[in-house]
């Protein structure tokens, strides 16, 4: 499960960039399964919890909890 810490989010969108790139081979905001709104991450139904976005977050705003 991915736990979100919105207080640490900077809006860098590295999570969105990597998600779209992983699943569509292109960088975009539109195809990302994680959406950042007002510095709070939300996941779409397609998210498979692969954890790529967590790896790309440098600020501790996303955390993978087993």
């Amino acid at each position, binding site marked *: 499960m991915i736990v979100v810490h919105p207080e640490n989010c*900077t*809006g*860098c969108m590295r999570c969105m*960039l990597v998600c779209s790139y992983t699943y569509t081979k*292109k*960088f975009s*905001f*539109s*195809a990302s399964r994680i959406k950042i709104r007002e510095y709070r991450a939300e996941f779409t139904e397609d998210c498979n919890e692969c954890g790529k976005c967590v790896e790309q977050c440098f600020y501790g705003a996303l955390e993978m909890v087993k």
Partner: protein
Amino acid sequence: MSFAGKILRIDLTNCEINKYDSDLAKNYIGGFGFCAKLACDNIKPEMDPLSPSNPLIIGAGALVGTNAPATSRIYAFTKLPANGAIGWGGGGGVTFACNLKFAGYDAVIIEGKADRPVFITIEDNDIGICDAEDTWGFGISETCQKIWKECGEGGIMAIGQAGENLVRFSMMYVDRLSTVGRGGIGAVMGSKNLKALFVRGSGSVEVKDRRRFDKAVKELLERMRSYPYLKEWQELGLLKSLPAIPRDVYLKLRKRRIACVSCPIGDKDVLELDGEEIYTTSAVNLVTPAVMGMNYKDAMRLTAKLDEYGMDMFEFLGILNFAKELSEKGKLELDSEIDFTSLDSMLSWAKKIALREGTGDLLANGFTEMEKKFGVKPKSVVKGLRAYVTPKGPLIWNLFGTMELGQILDPRGPHVAAGGSPTYFAKRPPESFRKHLARMGIPDEKIEEILSGGIKIGKLLCYSHIWFTVLASLGICARAQINRFYNADICAELYSAATGIEISKNQLLDRAKEVWRMLKLANFRAGFTREDDLPPEDWLDDGFRDYVTGEPLTKEDVERMLDEHYMEMGLEEFMRR
């Protein structure tokens, strides 16, 4: 490949919108280089900067939109109202630059003048020119809020009241968090009746060779992750190297750290000062007026207000200094006292200038006009703009390094961005130079030449400019905490992998050099000669000191550096005859 491939051209006079393909990237790298070429082709020497014909060219770099770290930059080229130079401003692109690429454009060129206040919306293929009557007169934050409310998520470039009123040191702001300025770029927007640009892209950016690209990005990210000062930089940003306020005071005020899209070491902030939210480019900027004797809270309030008006703080303080000097000489009558330690005095002057009230109307015209009117030369002013660093501060040493020389040689006038090198800090050990210079791609024998018998500042500056041009053309942020992870090899590798335009390190550096030469020569044709590159008189003899020997800097020292620089850059036109 990682280029969007299209340029958008909008003529505000007759609401004409054109989109066209361009292969300029091939020879001009992308982003900065590409826009520089568009500027040199489209700006004529005789153009009045505030006339409808002066184009405003805004573009994003070759890697913008990808996940290469901190590839967020946005650049705007135009003829600068402060001095008539074919110049530019650049800033962290926050969410604007990548959205422009996702919408399908590498650059947008804005020409003409709308018959009423407007803002432009760019949503993929849909381009709108919308009424901005209800935001005209608003500050930067208010304008952004209103547009976001109306249009939803997206990047915004906007001006405040200073730009509307054609203040010659007004700036454009990106998402209220970055400045694109110096030289009055805000006034160019104002002269076109253009309050803001809004952009949202639903498209994407691709890279040509994913495996190669991913490998280079992975390596960069790993190095960033294992950087021992990563946490400290993330926590403090520029305050790490310039501790303008104590750490605990700053952390208490900070509500959120903000980063431009793709940046792992963001340094923008939302602060809360006595219940009021302040969005800022950096906390260091925010407290800068404290050097004039204000307490830090008042300094922050003043900078926040100047940011709302959309006005360059350095220029604002500089012009007030000059006005004070003129009034003490009995040449100028002021309508109220200028007191740098009083917030009330500073706020009243900020308002007067931004809204052109009373004497503020005159001050808003900037140094060039003031000098002409009063026949007095202002101190530390180069090409009509106040230098960032002067022998009297704000740095605590007065050594003449590449940043200092860069301020007089930059074709657009003094700026912090283009003269970066280890000379930024006094008395760096020679080894730090060698490492830094190799990273910038300078060949070994050149490094020897630069470092032998002291440091050849003029020659070194040539490579600082080239390195800056590489980063800017790729869209990589040049701030110290980012720049340090990149080198010329990685840049060439990322560029080749992303764009499919195969380029070697040396080819990349050569193209960057050509871009800088082109800008310098275009300005030469617009009337900027060696004379304009000479230092202000107060920098000499009892001003700056030689970086290596510490001896007072003489005019001849600087002339020698200029020749050394022009020779290395291939700018014979500027050489001593």
